[in-house]
């Protein structure tokens, strides 16, 4: 009975699937050819088409670089304001709302504090730039530059839209994490060049944290590479295209292993970008800014810029690997251009970063490394096995499909619960004797 029913469902479903697939293909083609979709490329070609070939390539690349730097620098500026506004709202206060834009007279010089990033920038630029006499002058100068440079390098392989990947590398994912890991060098450079024992210790601590979290970060993306069968970011996004039953996207995050990997990736990227609750390297309320102790003025601002760039880059990579990149969630939403979808997903993840910062208290260094080595790394390793199971069973159909989901879910949840129980035995749930 059930077999017959399922067969019936299967036939009708497959028929429907085919129809939807045809419709989707038409829509997809229409969307891909839509003028709006090709707007960035058309705009660029409008200026560069008359150039001879090697020059054209060079100018195109330069335009891409300038666009990335301009877009993400302004995103950084807006993000600092948005972050303070959201943190304020979470704490039942309005956040910065006084600093207006002086050149807009009709707003009485005040627009939700939109002038705040501008004022902060001017303040940072006009502050005295102090370099300690004993510091290594060259390295002290190079550290923020290197940090920022490596952070910007990571943007090169992120596909911002259907045709908008600045550098379509075959091993784009590898390149991304190599460039991202190089920022750790700059952090230690800053600590070392300051010739200050606190800076050096803080830099070592930061390095311990960053290296600890490299591991779960990289292990969490291995399943994605395995199942997409590609190290190229564009290929991974293409692998997540299409919709099941016409409306459920094939994003990695919507599979058991993908969800687990995404959570691990997200936690690790919080730690990698020095964000709360893992912001020990520059814990404002505890250390004197850690490895940034001897930095002031615009160099200090550059470190923060690099932090936000790192955050944006990791969020962009998270979107690419798990949230379907620039793919729209539903076929009919394909009308909206792909780069808008990427932006929406990116901003959602960034809001998640801010939300988490507004919620959780900072971890201790031992809790931090414990979480990485004893919890996230085993889970990420196990998750590779789950992904292997998922990839071997891709041809299971009908009721077996349900079995596949059930087994994968158990394989994801069981180690989480077991390792969590083992680690939290004697610690959690915490009881408060003197407080309610």
């Amino acid at each position, binding site marked *: 009975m059930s077999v017959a029913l399922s067969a019936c469902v299967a036939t009708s479903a497959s028929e429907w699937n085919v129809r939807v697939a045809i419709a989707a293909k038409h829509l997809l083609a229409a969307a891909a050819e839509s003028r709006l979709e090709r707007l960035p490329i058309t705009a660029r070609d409008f200026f560069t088409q008359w150039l001879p070939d090697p020059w054209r390539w060079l100018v195109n690349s330069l335009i891409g670089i300038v666009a990335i730097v301009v877009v993400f620098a302004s995103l950084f500026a807006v993000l600092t304001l948005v972050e303070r506004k*959201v943190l304020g*709202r*979470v*704490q*039942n*206060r*309005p956040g910065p*709302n006084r600093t207006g834009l002086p050149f807009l007279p009709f707003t009485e010089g005040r627009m939700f504090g939109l002038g705040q990033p501008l004022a902060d920038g001017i303040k940072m630029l006009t502050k005295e730039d102090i370099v300690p006499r004993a510091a290594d002058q060259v390295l002290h100068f190079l550290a923020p530059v290197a940090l920022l440079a490596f952070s910007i390098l990571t943007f090169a392989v992120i596909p911002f839209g259907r045709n908008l990947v600045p550098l379509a590398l075959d091993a784009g994912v590898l390149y991304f994490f190599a460039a991202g890991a190089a920022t750790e060098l700059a952090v230690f450079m800053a600590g070392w060049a300051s010739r200050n024992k606190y800076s050096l210790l803080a830099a070592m601590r930061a390095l311990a944290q960053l290296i600890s979290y490299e591991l779960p970060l990289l292990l969490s993306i291995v399943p994605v590479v395995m199942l997409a069968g590609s190290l190229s970011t564009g290929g991974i996004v293409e692998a997540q295209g299409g919709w099941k039953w016409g409306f459920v996207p094939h994003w990695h995050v919507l599979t058991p292993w993908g969800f687990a990997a995404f959570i691990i990736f997200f936690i690790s990227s919080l730690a990698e970008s020095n964000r709360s609750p893992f912001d020990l390297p520059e814990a404002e309320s505890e250390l004197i800014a850690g490895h940034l102790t001897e930095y002031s003025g615009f160099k200090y601002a550059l470190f923060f810029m690099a932090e936000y760039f790192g955050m944006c880059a990791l969020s962009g990579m998270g979107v690419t690997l798990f949230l379907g990149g620039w793919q729209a969630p539903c076929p009919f939403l394909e009308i909206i251009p792909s780069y808008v979808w990427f932006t929406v997903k990116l901003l959602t993840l960034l809001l998640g970063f801010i*939300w*988490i910062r*507004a*919620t*959780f208290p900072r971890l201790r260094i031992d809790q931090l490394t414990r979480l990485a080595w004893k919890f996230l790394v085993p889970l990420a390793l196990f998750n590779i096995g789950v992904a292997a199971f998922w990839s071997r069973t891709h041809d299971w159909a009908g009721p077996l499909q349900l079995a596949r989901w059930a087994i994968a879910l158990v394989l994801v949840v069981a180690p*989480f*619960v077991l390792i*969590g*129980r083992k*680690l*939290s035995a004697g610690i*959690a*749930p915490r009881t408060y004797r003197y407080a309610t």
Partner: protein
Amino acid sequence: MFIRVHLWLTKMLGSGLIQGLAVTAKNLVGSFHDPLRFTTLEYPEQQPKLPENYRNFPFLVTENAGDPMGTLRCVACQICEKECPPQCIYIEKSKDKKPDATGRMQIYPAVFDIDTSVCMSCQICVEVCPFDAIKMDQVFEIATTDRFSALLLRREQLAKPNEYYHSIHPTEATEVDARLAAERKVAEEKAKAAAAAKATAPKPAANAAVAGLAEAGRPGPATPATKPIPAPTPPQPASSNPAQPPAAPSAEAENSPPAAA
């Protein structure tokens, strides 16, 4: 079954994190529509609604807003000046007299200064004033660019009409007005009675002598000329309260002659 699953989920590792995230999310969303979650008052644009009993720095009450200096309730009795703990009040009496709000001739303060850089808003001046002439204000935007002369408030700056007093402390001001009206009525009746007594005084000699004695003993308009002085019982306080100061008998001795008469 459902409850058991729910319990298991709430006990699971990471459930506390999700609960915490829910708390902050509620605050974030609630701050846009729930006044309890967004209590900030954006001050210069939105003025605070001060509670009625809020007080800050004294001011002088005048009866008539059109002529503030002419209708000050203050009669320069200098009680507040003497009682002020940080001694921030400075008063100079006038040489002449002017009719006050009730039309009686009174001394008035030629100079009345309060140094608000010294004043501690303790309200003692208000409590000791027998004329309800000085009351507490509600000003708080008192920043100045000059810390000496601008913080020393003159008589002209301190004088504010009774309507203003009503606007800041309505309950208290109504009470004060009722009390003043009652006192004024009593005073008028006394004045009338005194006038009547004076008119009838020359005829009975004995009455005149008593009235004259009373006038001599207690000068001033407040003394009721016709009010029968309560018969004192001189030995009673001394016997019932042995700890009374030695000054008491002499006071009684002063009081006794009219009683005897």
